[in-house]
């Protein structure tokens, strides 16, 4: 490992990770808040039934369906989009670590990070047992 290069990437990584996390959480919260306002304005007077489990409709389960609903300014679709951004935030952090391990030519940890990233992508795309 080249000491100067690893110090450089270490410092760059830390400020980038911090930025990604901050932007991710704030953006997610803003989208959820916006969707929440739309949802409460339209459905706030209805009676909730979270005591009965029915599962969400398919358009609120898949990335494509959520994007479609959010584009149509559905309150629930927008909230779900914000939650997707939130879930993607730690995934982006893992992806950033992959770049740094690659720059450092640290093969062991490139493989380790790829395994973690693969498990996360499997989960997000619904490919679990």
């Amino acid at each position, binding site marked *: 490992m080249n000491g100067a290069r690893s110090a450089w990437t270490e410092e760059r990584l830390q400020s980038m990770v911090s930025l990604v996390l901050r932007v991710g959480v704030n953006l997610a919260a803003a989208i959820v808040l916006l969707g929440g306002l739309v949802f409460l304005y339209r459905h706030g007077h209805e009676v909730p039934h979270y005591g009965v*489990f029915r599962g969400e409709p398919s358009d609120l389960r898949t990335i494509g369906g959520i994007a479609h609903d959010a584009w149509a300014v559905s309150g629930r679709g927008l909230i779900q989009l914000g939650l997707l951004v939130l*879930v993607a935030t730690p995934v982006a952090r893992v992806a950033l670590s992959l770049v740094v391990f690659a720059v450092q030519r640290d093969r062991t940890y490139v493989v380790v990070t790829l395994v973690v990233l693969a498990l996360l992508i499997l989960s997000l795309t619904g490919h679990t047992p």
Partner: protein
Amino acid sequence: MTILAQSALVALSSLAAGFLGSLTGLGGGVVIVPMLTLAFGVDIRYAIGASLVSVIATSSGAAAAYVKEGYTNVRIGMLLEIATTAGALVGASLATVVPAGAIAVVFGLVLLHSGYVSRRPHPDQDTSAAAPDPLAARLRLDSSFPVPGGVREYHVRRLPAGFALMGVAGVLSGLLGIGSGAVKVLAMDQAMRLPFKVSTTTSNFMIGVTAAASAGVYLSRGYVDPGLAMPVMLGVLAGSFLGARVLVAASSRWLRVVFALVIVVLAAEMIGNGLAGRF
């Protein structure tokens, strides 16, 4: 009660949970599920989905501040994340087949354990003089962290035991929708003998990634209801933000006792209701 009124109440309760969780260092996640199921009558699967989302939010929010301090060991975190994310996928898949009452009982037991762990002092051993563990050395896990007037080296012990415990932490996180901070502390402080600051920040880094793995499964299974997750996420996030700002060492001991008592009561309720089949 209308959706508007319930959302306001859930947001306020989540704010209190996030505030107390941040002050006591236990995280708001552990009380969200009992609060939603016991006080608001929410189905436990929806409650777990909403809780997971709030865990990612608080962990990522806190990590943004931790990252620059130089305590987080990214290599240890990433290696153990193989165990936690794989465990989380198993746990989240289990949640779809295990009866709700059984989930409630397991939740109560884990709650009791985390309340117990939080009451114990954290021994901070100096492992700099110990002989390096061959496996940890080969994986270059040993590192150092800043202390007043320099840096302190540390060596990682018993990696396989830590790895196995992390798998358990992942399963519990996916099954119960919590950060499993207490089990992670067990693995990193007790088994691997990491210095307290390193284990706390590294565990926080891992909690977000582990919860993201579980949340993906819950989202694609339709267990995350946007109308319920919205007030929980915003409330917990606002509460933990406030908690981080007013952190006062003197009063936090008092609060830990109160919070531990709350946890014991909630755990008893969860176990009782779970055994009585009221979920």
